[in-house]
């Protein structure tokens, strides 16, 4: 038995095919979800993939957040559906207030594409259980609006509750407060991060590392054992 991992395509989503491929490589059954369709087609988990949905016009993620598929995802995420937001997906999750804070233009004002070192700070979420707490991984980072901000109170709360899931190492690439690369909700089912684990699942392409595969094997193990 395997699990069904849904990947949403909004107009302008780019990394949906990569996320589907990553789910497949991890051993899951990949399922395409369409933004206009409220039905999640019995998936066990959802990935909101990277890209420029609606061109990132207005604000990254701001328009997609109001799509029909998000209505269902927001509702089910609140009752435990595992959701991973990567890059644009992370932006959608903050715009939808499933995760606190907001994403802003990189402090250097340029798009940045690089191989990024991260530390996995929380290895208990639905999407990170296959990592060790404190483990260092490298995955591609590529974004224009990757600067994570939230007010001090929220940041302190995230830190205190162990909800900073990933932190940048070797230089903060975008001015994110407290070097935050990704966070989780309190229940650990909703996780968002700027770097792209789905681009780091095969030794042949990208940066040649497979450090991102753990996201997909984590969720798969959790779902299959559940």
């Amino acid at each position, binding site marked *: 038995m395997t699990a069904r991992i849904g990947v949403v395509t909004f*107009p*302008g989503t780019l*990394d949906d095919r990569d996320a589907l491929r990553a789910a497949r490589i991890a051993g899951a059954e990949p399922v395409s979800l369409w933004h206009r369709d409220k039905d999640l087609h019995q998936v066990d988990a959802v990935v909101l993939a990277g890209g420029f949905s609606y*061109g990132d016009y207005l604000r990254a993620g701001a328009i997609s957040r109001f799509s029909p598929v998000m209505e269902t995802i927001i509702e089910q995420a609140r009752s435990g559906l595992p959701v991973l937001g990567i890059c644009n997906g992370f932006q959608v999750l903050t715009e939808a207030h499933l995760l606190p804070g907001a994403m802003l233009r990189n402090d250097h004002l340029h*798009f940045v594409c690089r191989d990024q070192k991260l530390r996995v700070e929380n290895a208990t979420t639905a999407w990170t259980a296959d990592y060790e707490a404190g483990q260092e991984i490298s995955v591609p980072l590529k974004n224009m609006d990757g600067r994570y901000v939230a007010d001090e109170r929220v940041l302190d709360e995230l830190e205190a509750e162990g909800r900073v899931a990933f932190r940048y190492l070797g230089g903060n690439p975008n001015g994110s407060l407290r070097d935050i690369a990704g966070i989780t909700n309190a229940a650990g089912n909703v996780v968002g991060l700027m770097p792209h684990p789905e681009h780091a699942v095969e030794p042949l392409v990208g940066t040649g590392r497979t450090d991102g595969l753990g996201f997909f094997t984590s969720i798969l193990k959790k779902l299959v054992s559940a």
Partner: protein
Amino acid sequence: MTLDTVKHAGGTPDVEQPWAELGLKQDEYARIREILGRRPTGAELAMYSVMWSEHCSYKSSKVHLKQFSEKKPESDAMLVGIGENAGVVDVGQGYAVTFKVESHNHPSYIEPYQGAATGIGGIVRDILAMGARPVAVVDPLRFGAADHPDTKRVLPGVVAGIGGYGNCLGLPNIGGEVVFDSCYQGNPLVNAGCIGVMKHEDLHLAKASGPGNKVILYGARTGGDGIGGVSVLASETFDAAGKPTKRPAVQVGDPFQEKLLIECTLEIFREKLVAGIQDLGGAGLSCATSELASAGSGGMRVELDTVPLRDATLSPEEILMSESQERMCAVVEPDKVERFLAICEKWDVIATVIGEVTDGERLEIYWHGEQIVDVPPRSVAHEGPTYHRPYARPEWQDALQADDAGTLPRPGTGAELKDQVLKLVAHPNQASKAWITDQYDRFVQGNTVLAQPEDAGMIRIDEETNLGVAMATDGNGRYAKLDPYTGAQLALAEAYRNVAASGARPLAISDCLNFGSPEDPAVMWQFAEVTRGLADGCLELGTPVTGGNVSLYNQTGEVAIHPTPVVAVLGVIDDVTRRTPIAFAEEGQLLYLLGDTREEFGGSAWSEVVHGHLGGLPPRVDLAREKLLGEILISASRDGMIDAAHDLSDGGLVQAVVESCLRGGTGARLVVPDGLDAFTFLFSESAGRAVVAVPRSEELRFTDMCGARGLPATRIGVVDGTELDVQGEFGVSLDELRTAHEATVPALLA
């Protein structure tokens, strides 16, 4: 104002018409009258003027471009040749690849961000129109002097525009060039290339056949963008003040709309819903309708009122000339129209039936029920004027060639050599371009095997079999200025060598030929020499030209840019796991220099960096040798005999070794081979060379192969330590090299 209908034109032969303002010559206007047997209507005049412009008709260049077909090498790979939107080559396993390079030079000078962005948009639609899924882009760029204030305006905007558009489309940027030279001040070159992949059966051509078939315009609404842009921006000598036009000369791109257009079009292809398709680029609807009709059975009728507008005040002439971006035109059988429109609706793409294919031989366009265009489409699209412009070798050419770089003072000591090496790798032209290329997404789509700063970009196109394609673009304006014929062949040879160094087999080329004004006989001579050199070179290398682009009038006043042929070579690799990177990664591996090194410094990076000199002759070209070198590099990669390879080009051996060391994070110890002095060894730019890293276990097999095939292979050192050590001359730490190489561009631009 009364509508200038065909009927009205027939009855008013003496009306004054603004043919000169539209860029037509008197004899061209006379020819239009002759073709039509009356004066043209305003709309017809608009169409002819834009389609007969230099940019669309290639009137100055086509007599020379003919050579690419006449001297075409025998190649089984060509599926579609010159003349279509882009050429198509067979890469095996049922796959075909289409690729092309185009220029967006003048618009990018006026509005760097949008000019460059729409350059990417345009080339991507070209590729899409062939039936292919775009899989990667490349961007060969030239700017004025690196420290000139205007470069600081133009470059960041151009780079942000290329990134902003390409990243948003989800197309990995896998290569390109950045060159600074004051000759490009005021005339930066923004060339953009795209690669697309399809199955053989998905090939689509731009033609409208089958009377009764519907003509569908889909994508963005039509606005006043770039009206006159084609003729004013792309074809006239650019005057710095810029001519104020009533409508914006600049197009603004909407990459989000284009992404939808791509996905929508691919879905339409998958369901086999189109009989012919054409992208809208320069000359907009004028071009799309006349080219589709001209290539098809000939007749087409269009109701211009049905075109969805962004600006309701546009006149019919303006609608025909508008260069609004993100539009495509398809010819669809009537029973497939409904499904076609449904797919467009799914992707939020506006689609409208604007006309149909007729069984006549005329392109007829109506506005409010009245006929405003009635022309033979071939006369607009394919039978424009041809110029045999005079050309002559400039009188300064001899003096330039006589100013031999070989006589320049050379470094005398190890310390001087070291100093000049550091200067070389830190010069803006040789420095790391990571500050620029890190603004481009190179990972998207998850198939990028190699990208910058590798010799060639490489994309996997089949996940099961690991079939892949590679591309490199090159062009050295300094060489071409010294000798255009040789310069063109050097551009070709370098791109070819880069592709081979990555392990891929070069198959075919595209080119973008950037020159000054064709009205200057010296420039025309450069153009004639470059095309001759390129055609001869392609014949010898067996790599046909599949298509390309010519950009003329890159000049301010009397001063033209260096002749700058940019060549893109496409290669194929059966198994991308066998690719060869440039990084020296394994200590103890042996470094071999392949090819012959001569004292060749004309046009070299060294002569520029150390002496600010341009003169003499460029390096000699030996294409048979290039071919042999390529075969060796490809065999060695396939059979696992080498772990790294880097071609030698500007900056010579030392530049290549520094790049490979920095990429791998290892040092190297070099020994100057017998018969060479250290300076020539390090800085010469002799063509037909590469440096490779050979595992010790493979050394014998590798040198045997080179020996048996007659390629000189000289052992020059070993991968080792944390510095670059040239025995008996100098040593320099990787850290120092890295700082020199990587700090320059950010310091100039950040």
